[in-house]
């Protein structure tokens, strides 16, 4: 098989952010590209929070925000700490958040991925929808030479695997280790339709702009994870991301879908979606083990991009996966083209993929925050006692009942003491070091 001309220069598995951009990049460079996407249309199987930071996509489509079906520009960042009976929200807005290249946009993946896919198709890539690649074909030397999908075996000089977080092929055909329940989170989300002017009123945002909101605490009933809320054009995305090992535990009495329902009914959340119509309920994995869970990304004849390579980062106040997917997809596309031109598509010929990811932000940022996933997993009190202490402190400040008041310091001291001053300082220092 190795002596025959391959059917395509490049085959891309999956047409999400990583795959579509890889295909576009390679097709644009004049290569013959086949994309196999298991969804009936690109995006049909995909879900995100979510918002995409624009910087990586702008390298590929400089004016994407004018053309792509993005929902809203995020100009309000909100962070909330919630206890079962209380909630504290910080709402931050700044002109920096809307500067070109530093800006971000909320997206819904069904329309967004169809747009990305149409760009790849316009550039000349061939896209097959509705069928999953079942296997990567290898030659006797173990080199990836193509794919098997349904009855068909199709060959290529390079296969780019961009299959997303549930990376069956990377595990079953490339030998990557299965992520552990500590390294993966379950994401659950619901989309609620709400007229756009009501969204702007509820979030105090100018027309066309919106908010991104992350919650910690009672949203996951005190388990490691968090809640998220993103404003779309005329809908709201609301959901949870929680570490699998913490949800599956025998001492957790609440299934994740019940947690989402409880979150929706929390007094700080219910009014936001009041009167909004539920239109979709979705689920997806989120790789959150960071740098230490990234598998081998370069093989003979094959590159792994995006979530399939676990290139995703959840810092609690920042979730990034789509910009990593776009960037790794672009680099994979470029490196594959160069290797084909140089007639060396072995792992050595493709090695600059890894080097470029290391030099650029993808692996560099993941490495910088490599200690965070474990720190977060050990910092159980962040999800229980900290929100409770915040409630105590703010109650001490704001509750007036006509009793003789003590100095604020006296009112707050017992709360801090109960938290354990040293323990808290140590924890916060540790977290700051990892972040």
């Amino acid at each position: 098989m190795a002596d025959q001309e391959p059917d395509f220069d490049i085959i891309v598995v999956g047409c999400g952010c990583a795959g579509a951009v890889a295909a576009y990049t390679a097709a644009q460079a004049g290569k013959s590209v086949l994309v196999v996407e298991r969804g009936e249309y690109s995006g049909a199987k995909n879900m995100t929070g979510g918002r995409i930071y624009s910087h990586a996509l702008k390298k590929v489509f400089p004016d994407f925000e004018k053309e792509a079906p993005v929902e809203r520009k995020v100009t309000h960042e909100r962070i909330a700490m919630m206890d079962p009976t209380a909630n504290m929200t910080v709402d931050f807005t700044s002109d920096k958040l809307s500067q070109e290249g530093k800006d971000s946009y909320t997206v819904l993946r069904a329309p967004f991925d169809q747009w990305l896919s149409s760009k790849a198709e316009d550039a000349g890539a061939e896209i097959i929808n509705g069928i999953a690649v079942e296997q990567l074909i290898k030659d006797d030397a173990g080199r990836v030479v193509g794919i098997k999908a349904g009855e068909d075996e199709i060959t290529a000089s390079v296969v780019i695997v961009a299959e997303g977080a549930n990376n069956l092929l990377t595990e079953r055909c490339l030998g990557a280790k299965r992520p552990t329940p500590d390294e993966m989170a379950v994401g659950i989300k619901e989309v609620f339709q709400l007229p756009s002017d009501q969204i702007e009123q509820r979030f105090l945002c100018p027309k066309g702009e919106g908010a991104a909101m992350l919650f910690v605490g009672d949203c996951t009933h005190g388990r490691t994870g968090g809640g998220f809320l993103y404003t779309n054009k005329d809908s709201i995305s609301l959901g949870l991301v929680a570490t699998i090992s913490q949800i599956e535990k025998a001492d957790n009495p609440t299934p994740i879908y019940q947690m989402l329902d409880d979150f929706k009914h929390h007094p700080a959340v219910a009014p936001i979606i009041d009167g909004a119509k539920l239109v979709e309920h979705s689920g997806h994995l989120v790789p959150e083990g960071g740098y230490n869970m990234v598998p081998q990304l370069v093989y003979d004849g094959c590159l792994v991009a995006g979530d399939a390579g676990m290139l995703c980062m959840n810092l609690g106040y920042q979730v990034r996966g789509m910009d990593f997917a776009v960037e790794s997809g672009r680099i994979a596309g470029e490196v594959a083209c160069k290797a084909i031109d140089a007639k060396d598509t072995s792992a050595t010929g493709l090695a600059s993929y890894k080097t470029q990811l290391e030099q650029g932000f993808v692996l560099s940022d993941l490495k910088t925050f490599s200690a965070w996933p474990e720190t977060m997993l050990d910092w159980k009190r962040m999800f229980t006692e900290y929100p409770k202490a915040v409630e105590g402190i703010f109650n001490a400040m704001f509750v007036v009942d006509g009793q003789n008041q003590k100095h604020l310091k006296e009112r707050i001291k017992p709360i801090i003491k109960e938290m354990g001053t040293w323990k808290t300082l140590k924890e916060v220092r540790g977290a700051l070091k990892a972040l």
Partner: protein
Amino acid sequence: MSDINPITVNVDAAIALNKYNVDEENAHIELVDNPDDEEFKKLVRLCPAGLYKIDKDGNKTFDYAGCLECGTCRIACESTILKKWDNPQPGMGVEYRFG
């Protein structure tokens, strides 16, 4: 003890809003016979579509028809009580309109 609190939400009604092409012939996820109770309860807690259920009499049921194809059950239990986790057949399964 590993008990699960009473459920107040109707998750079936929520997933009923999704678009699916259900493959009646082919289950893309299969459990082993007589799955271990504790392992099964992990999936009750984890599945975002609430497809793993234990009824009043302690009977365990699983219905792949409402599957969101997330892979969470695979990460938790492919090495224990899941016999099979594959992508659905061509054209089958969930079809997000929003995502």
